[in-house]
């Protein structure tokens, strides 16, 4: 059991002096995600000299600027590709990537798909507020049907993107989705994601009262946070009701977001396999590849 520290002590260890308070709006969910990450890192006890944060562009990607560790603030959507390079150069470093919904599922979709497929050893924390917040409130790929944004003033007609489903089908080692309302489950989930080898994804549904909440008439900050609590349901309950529940229960639950841990298994990561290849080549100085049969289905 680790002795719990107070928020005061956490500040001194993990925040950059003089950078706080943040640029985030009143009632924004991003500061809470950062806090959960700090508590998870505190429980793990990692060396902050060997931890590197990478991020793209947007509100969520401003988070590494506040953390007292190496940070790489890259171009829009490419945080995962840059992080692949950092890991290739020095496989001993621990990687944490903060992206947003537009950054990861929009412009950065291709890099996300291939990093998850290769099972690169990193943790992606995607903060989903259903909108492009920093540029003023444009439509995001994850926005629910009929939501309003500045570039969809008559309502969104596109079906939303479910990134957890995509990560699950690519075989990522750990996939989970949480809201920011209740602290204990996300902190444990982030700790599990960080300590697992291979590709881990933790999606956070965070409120954006300034851009999303205001335009979609979700009320003030308290009502907006309550909206997330009312419209999400744990994946176990969701599956139980959809399989065995009555018609009335199914009707209530059908349109809620399922949250929880979707996938949790261990498959070997890319750099483990690569190291085996290099050792085999250097020891035996093999010039031609050894004859193997191609594996068609895993």
């Amino acid at each position, binding site marked *: 059991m680790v002795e719990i520290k107070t928020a005061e002590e956490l500040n001194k260890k993990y925040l*950059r002096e003089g*950078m706080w308070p943040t640029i985030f709006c009143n009632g924004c969910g991003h500061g809470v995600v950062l806090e959960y990450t700090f508590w998870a890192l505190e429980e793990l006890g990692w060396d*902050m*000299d*060997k931890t*590197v944060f*990478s991020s793209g562009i947007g509100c969520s990607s401003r988070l*590494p*600027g506040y953390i*007292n*560790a*190496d*940070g*790489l*603030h*890259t*171009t829009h959507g*490419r945080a995962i*590709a*840059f*992080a*692949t*390079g*950092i*890991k*290739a*150069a*020095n*496989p*001993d*470093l621990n990687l944490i990537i903060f992206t947003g919904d537009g950054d990861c599922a929009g412009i950065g979709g*291709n*890099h996300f*798909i*291939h990093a998850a497929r290769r099972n690169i050893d990193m943790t992606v924390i995607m903060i989903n507020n259903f909108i492009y917040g920093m540029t003023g409130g444009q439509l995001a790929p994850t926005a629910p049907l009929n939501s309003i944004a500045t570039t969809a003033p008559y309502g969104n007609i596109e079906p939303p993107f479910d990134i957890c489903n995509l990560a699950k089908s690519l075989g990522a080692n750990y996939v989970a989705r949480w809201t920011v309302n209740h602290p204990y489950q996300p902190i444990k989930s982030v700790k599990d994601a960080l300590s697992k080898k291979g590709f881990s994804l933790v999606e956070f549904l965070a409120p954006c009262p300034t851009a999303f909440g205001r335009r979609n008439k979700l009320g003030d900050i308290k009502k907006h946070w309550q909206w997330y609590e009312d419209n999400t349901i744990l994946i176990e309950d969701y599956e139980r009701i959809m399989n065995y529940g009555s018609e009335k229960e199914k009707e209530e639950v059908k349109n809620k977001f399922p949250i929880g841990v979707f996938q949790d298994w261990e498959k070997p990561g890319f*750099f483990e396999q*690569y*190291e085996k*290849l*290099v050792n085999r*080549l*250097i020891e035996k*100085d093999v010039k031609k590849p050894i004859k193997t049969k191609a594996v068609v289905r895993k």
Partner: protein
Amino acid sequence: MVIYKRNPNLIKKVLGNKIQFLLGDMACVYGGIISGVSFFGGYPITPASEVAEGMARLLPRVGGTYIQMEDEIGSIAAVIGAAWGGSKSMTATSGPGFSLMMENYGYAVMTETPCVIVNVQRTGPSTGQPTLGAQGDMMQARWGTHGDLEAIALAPSTVQECLDFTIEAFNLSEKYRNPACVMTDGEIGHLRERIVIPDENELELIDRVEAKIDKNKYVPFTNSQTRKNCKIPDFATFGTGYRTYVTGLTHNEKGFPATDKQKDHERLVKRITSKISDDAEKLVSVEELNLDDSDVVFVTYGASARPAESAMDIARKKGLKVGLLRLKIVWPFPEKIITKLAKDVNKIIVPEMNLGQIYHPIKEAACGNCEVISAPKIGGEMHLPIELLKYLGGEI
């Protein structure tokens, strides 16, 4: 897991004999491995696929990492990330891929990251003729990305130069903390010639200057704190405990975003550009043939220099006074040499495999002191010496 360490004996064993008959693209691979490359992120594109294939075969055998990324944008992003992780890294592409890489190329300039991009040029615009060479990206290497920056670009003419210039590109990029481009083309890239691999004691390799001072005093993006009169900051790779924050936004000296004031941006961008433009005279590398008594000079670079040299020899045999000036480092552009040359000769002819790109800086540097004529040829074929002789003005 093991971190790469350059081992000259292993490199020598993996590369093989000292004298070989080698493809141009493979010579770039050999140049990279000799310099100590430990990360290559690539994507297949004709005519640069052989660089990626050669790296996939040879790099794991010396302990480096090869990843075939999902596209060119991912390749250059991974290369920049690997440079911050501590490796020497490179990528190889052609025209369409080079256009895709432009955003992150500007990111590498802004964050002062060393890396090498090999551009095996092919005809353009767009898909063009994938299997034939051209020299149509020379201006793009300088001005392709948005904003104000300085570029370093080299143009090899032979397969031996592909090897030597790749090593030189690594040295320049590590010294100036700027990306460097090696602009070969489809003709040289797919040509086989005899090369000689330099011995370890003939090589001069420059590595980045790592930061070693006290962590509380270190300032990441300012003039060097250990070398006098040097605008290039000391490099603090990730994982060494310096906890740098690197961003593409306009940043202050500590690396944090500072986008509000005009003075901050001016100071940053002027330091980044002047660290190369101040050394423009040191970064001149040309080959001069028969310039002492010439009236007409071919000023050229890369693959076009080969027919120009043949044309010069034929003309000399007929008694005409023709010379050749071959640019090895094209950007930063050697203005002072061209200005001095223009005062001594009557005519400068610029043969290029494009519709006239380096012709313009040459004409500007000549300042009207002599006549400057462009000799373009597009379509994937090199100039014939007879075609170039026609430009000597009906004197044959």
